[in-house]
């Protein structure tokens, strides 16, 4: 199985090098609402997930599923438009698979974005939160099973999963772009059901500031293979039980849309600086 996974990763890598001349230094995973940012890259080469040998295929209708290679701010970047979620039925290794391929392509830095629910009551919908740490509350992990020794150690450290250096750059960029940034701990749940108010109260007690259904598998895999990682959540709504009104998906989308411009501006200035 170990050799098998590695050979599947290598096959995907070889395909991307041959078909798109891929040699990215940094990777960006674009969460809900941010996908358009990739369109602004120069010298774009687009590869659909379904063309890539071994790549999982996105099942969510209307979600794009493709890699965009290009340059932005003078950096060679790969963007993931559309990611894989555990709740869709993929196993954790499939969710983390793109990260392993990026590692094989030479990626050294990863920025992950997502949409999340606010648990910390000082947050407001539309806030951006830099992820300083996470809690994996899923009972699952992409690193279980035979270890890929070529990528990293059996027991990788996670005491600093979110790079201090990248976090500082993001903070400086936000300050110079006059964008307000929150900071907090992201708790990762499988979903797909949203949390109950009782669960949200429990997670607050446990030290979480925002809740979501993505990001952590990719961050675990990236840290394992030594890719420096940063994460930014867009707080699209307050989590269950905080507001009197029930969650409204239209408002969530509106919030994401409202924030898109400043979020994209932030990410672009970060790419220039890294």
């Amino acid at each position, binding site marked *: 199985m170990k050799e098998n996974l590695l050979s599947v990763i290598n096959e995907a890598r070889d395909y991307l090098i041959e078909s798109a001349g891929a040699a990215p230094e940094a990777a960006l995973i674009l969460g809900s609402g941010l996908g358009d940012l990739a369109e602004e890259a120069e010298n774009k080469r687009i590869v659909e997930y379904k063309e890539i040998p071994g790549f999982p295929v996105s099942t969510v209708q209307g979600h794009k599923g493709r890699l965009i290679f290009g340059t932005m701010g003078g950096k060679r970047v790969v963007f993931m438009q559309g990611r894989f979620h555990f709740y869709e039925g993929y196993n954790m290794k499939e969710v983390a698979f793109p990260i392993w391929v990026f590692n094989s392509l030479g990626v050294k830095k990863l920025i992950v974005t997502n949409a999340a629910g606010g648990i910390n009551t000082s947050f407001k919908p539309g806030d951006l939160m830099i992820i300083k740490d996470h809690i994996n509350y899923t009972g699952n992990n992409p*690193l279980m099973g035979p270890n890929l020794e070529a990528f990293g150690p059996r*027991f*990788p450290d996670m005491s600093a999963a979110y790079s201090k250096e990248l976090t500082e750059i993001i903070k400086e960029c936000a300050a110079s772009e006059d964008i307000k940034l929150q900071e907090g701990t992201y708790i990762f749940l499988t979903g797909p059901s949203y949390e109950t108010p009782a669960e949200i109260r429990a997670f607050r007690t446990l030290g979480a500031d925002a809740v979501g259904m993505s990001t952590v598998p990719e961050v675990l895999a990236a840290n394992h293979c030594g890719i420096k990682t940063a994460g930014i959540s867009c707080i699209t709504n307050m989590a269950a039980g905080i507001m009197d009104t029930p969650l409204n998906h239209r408002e969530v989308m509106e919030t994401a849309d409202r924030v898109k411009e400043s979020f994209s501006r932030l990410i672009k200035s970060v790419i220039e600086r890294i």
Partner: protein
Amino acid sequence: MDLRERIEKSTEFIRENSGFEPEIGIVLGTGLGSLADYIDKVSSIDYADIPEFPVSTVFGHEGRLILGRLEGKRVIAMQGRFHYYEGYSMQEVTIPVRVMKKLGIKLLVASNACGGLNPNFEAGDIMIITDHINFMGTNPLIGPNLEEFGPRFPDMSQVYDKELVELLEKIAASQGIRVHKGVYGAVSGPNYSTKAELSMMIKLGADTVGMSTVPEAIAARHCGLKVAGVSCITDMAIPDTMTAPTHEEIVKVAESVKPRFVSLVKQFIKEVQL
């Protein structure tokens, strides 16, 4: 082959090859395998030779059963155990406990290397396990219940036998060994926990954190075995003061605990009443 048959096949093989009926099972954790050197061996069987037994992959674990006499008791010791993070199912992780039950043991002594979360602990200390919290998100008893082993809904209100905890404490006192009592939190791993996760576990009442023992303890209680648990605290994992552990350091500290661990467990085996 179903679980019941696997247990049966492994049990028969060990019984025929050793002609020995053990009364105590001992699981030797990372770096603690040398207790087996004190056993007056009747038989030593590599896991790889046992039909339907899983095979250990972790560095530092030896992977064999030692049957023989220790301090006047008939024991079976596991040098090397199976971990969930290696990719085994929880059922496989607990096959050895059920096999040992079938071979005749009445008591399981489980040891491990773990991280300390209680500020009163120090790396190199020994903790007698008084209770556990299962943070693994899964359970070896999920699936059809093996009625001949135990009930569908086994009690876990007293996993670690009170009298055995007292006996261990008494022996430690008489040998001048510093021990603590506390709660073991089990996570899946294989990555070490994030600081946010460690803070969460501290808030929830865990004194140590590790990646083993709990599956075996649950399976042992299910089939009516008495359980005693001994943890070697190989590193401190308090978020504000911790430094990232390495597996090599952990093995090194476990090495320094070994003489005290061996002395404590040997005397315990001698004095324990079955």
